[in-house]
């Protein structure tokens, strides 16, 4: 595996297994190793070997069915997988959805309030104002609300219109 990793490095394609020397092998599957130059003159600098192993750590792990927690190369910090980062953060999407719903609901409520008020303003202009106010006040005075006479829907009986003249303002 080490030889394979070294082969991936440019200028080192000719590295063979025989160029990798082991030492200090223990029972607990840990060992020191060095990689020698093909001409077997000198060992390669640690930095080069380290970067080569780093690039292929994933394949080494997979070959042994191990992972970064169970197979450790001392002095080679493992490259961690960054957490998934979608282009548009998910929370903005959900925020946008809820925001639009709320805005629509507010607009609907405001508009319906305006319509109701317009309808209320149209009706009383046909009925006498004083009569209407008196009617409304009487219904609440006893503390027992009762339905005011629905003068908006029914026909106005002219015979009773003479009552207006009796209600002279003081």
């Amino acid at each position, binding site marked *: 595996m080490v030889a394979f990793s070294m082969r991936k490095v440019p200028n080192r394609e000719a590295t063979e297994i025989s160029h990798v020397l082991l030492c200090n092998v223990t029972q607990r599957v840990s060992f020191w190793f060095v990689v020698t130059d093909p001409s077997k003159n000198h060992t390669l600098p640690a930095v080069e070997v380290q970067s080569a192993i780093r690039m292929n750590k994933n394949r080494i792990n997979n070959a042994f069915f191990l992972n970064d927690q169970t197979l450790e190369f001392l002095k080679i910090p493992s490259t961690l997988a960054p957490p998934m980062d979608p282009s548009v953060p998910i*929370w903005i999407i*959900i925020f946008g959805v809820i925001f639009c719903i709320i805005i629509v609901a507010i607009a609907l*409520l405001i508009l319906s309030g305006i319509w109701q*008020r317009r309808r209320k303003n149209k009706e009383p202009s046909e009925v006498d104002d004083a009569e209407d106010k008196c009617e409304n006040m009487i219904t609440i005075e006893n503390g027992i609300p009762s339905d005011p006479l629905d003068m908006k829907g029914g026909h106005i009986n002219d015979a009773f219109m003479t009552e207006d003249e009796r209600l002279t303002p003081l």
Partner: protein
Amino acid sequence: MEKARPLWANSLQFVFACISYAVGLGNVWRFPYLCQMYGGGSFLVPYIIMLIVEGMPLLYLELAVGQRMRQGSIGAWRTISPYLSGVGVASVVVSFFLSMYYNVINAWAFWYLFHSFQDPLPWSVCPLNGNHTGYDEECEKASSTQYFWYRKTLNISPSLQENGGVQWEPALCLLLAWLVVYLCILRGTESTGKIEQLANPKAWINAATQIFFSLGLGFGSLIAFASYNEPSNNCQKHAIIVSLINSFTSIFASIVTFSIYGFKATFNYENCLKKVSLLLTNTFDLEDGFLTASNLEQVKGYLASAYPSKYSEMFPQIKNCSLESELDTAVQGTGLAFIVYTEAIKNMEVSQLWSVLYFFMLLMLGIGSMLGNTAAILTPLTDSKIISSHLPKEAISGLVCLVNCAIGMVFTMEAGNYWFDIFNDYAATLSLLLIVLVETIAVCYVYGLRRFESDLKAMTGRAVSWYWKVMWAGVSPLLIVSLFVFYLSDYILTGTLKYQAWDASQGQLVTKDYPAYALAVIGLLVASSTMCIPLAALGTFVQRRLKRGDADPVA
């Protein structure tokens, strides 16, 4: 003859509105903390006694005043005595301060809710550092949940002085929170009740305080809600129901919170043990699986004697794992809700579901209380003829929400959480005690207890029991005075006030002193609401003197 006042559709709606207002975040994050600090189950004794002696009578008083006067807090107190309209104004001012900062909590809850729809949950993993060889330094020193809270959510600055700019993400969430509140109050308060959702002298004082603030007395919200009641409504029954439900919710929330604490403590303890075992196994080339929780201490002792030099070398790295120390971490407030709970949730199965449910619950609680607060502000405004003749109800609500939202942007700055703590600790505490004290004295001695009692009897048709009269006239005012004296002396004795600042380099909270201008703001907060009472009394006095001065020459 009075203009037709909007009414609750039925008394159940009124009860639900009161419950949703009283049952708030304090039930979830303050009460369990107090239980833990003051001896667990034994805290219930002072709590229940204070509930019966202070909470229920004062709640009944506020509801009765609102129902009798049929006006918001300013109008109600002006009717009792023109010199006391300042009490209503003070209530409105305090409610205004509260609504300014309280909705920020809802904004944070929205933020966490929106982030709960990811796998894995963003606060369960640390982000990587620059060259991807390890985790971010601040995250390593603190924990991933703390990092997410302090760095990603708040982006907190190291101290109060360094203001930083307004962060757009929490600002958006705050805007959304205010839009939701506006949606609910748009059509007036009647629509807010639709959602249901409540040895040691320090223990007693904290029990009294908790009952007091948990029920939301003194803000004017209860008066506002009750003013929309039918006069014949049995507010005594409702007062008892609301206070009982509020307390049961607190107790229920503590049961849940303690089980969450236990889960988190066990999980962290077992993790700690695993880490220590791994470290020992690697250093001494032990057999895998040799170390277990039960033989850990024995093996440590053996290793210390067999390989003393090696053991002493790696000794600093071994943490002492203790379940008790994990359980001892008692947290309250935003720390509990957003750090401890999220840490527990991230370790559960199907954590996204629990996270969504939990933050949805926080939102329900928070928005329910917000609606009560805004009702306290809006009811006096819509009652006043001057304002309501010029602007329709929707515009007044919109204006209040807009002003609060704009001021609330202060809390989305980098130092915003420190200002939040200032408001949370000082905006309402002393002023409310004073307000409720003046309220009780006003009703009993200025308006007259007998007169109030006969009013209630005429209104509801039921006599007022002697218990309530004794409480209103004697016990509750005495209790409030003693609470007030205690807090005042506590503030004076502790000298300069301090706050907890997040230190990014150490990954933990450090204590710092408030700068002078922060102390000035605190003083202003307390003064602006309490001064309303004497100022309004003085104003009315001067007004009357002037009128009498004009009338004299004629007579």
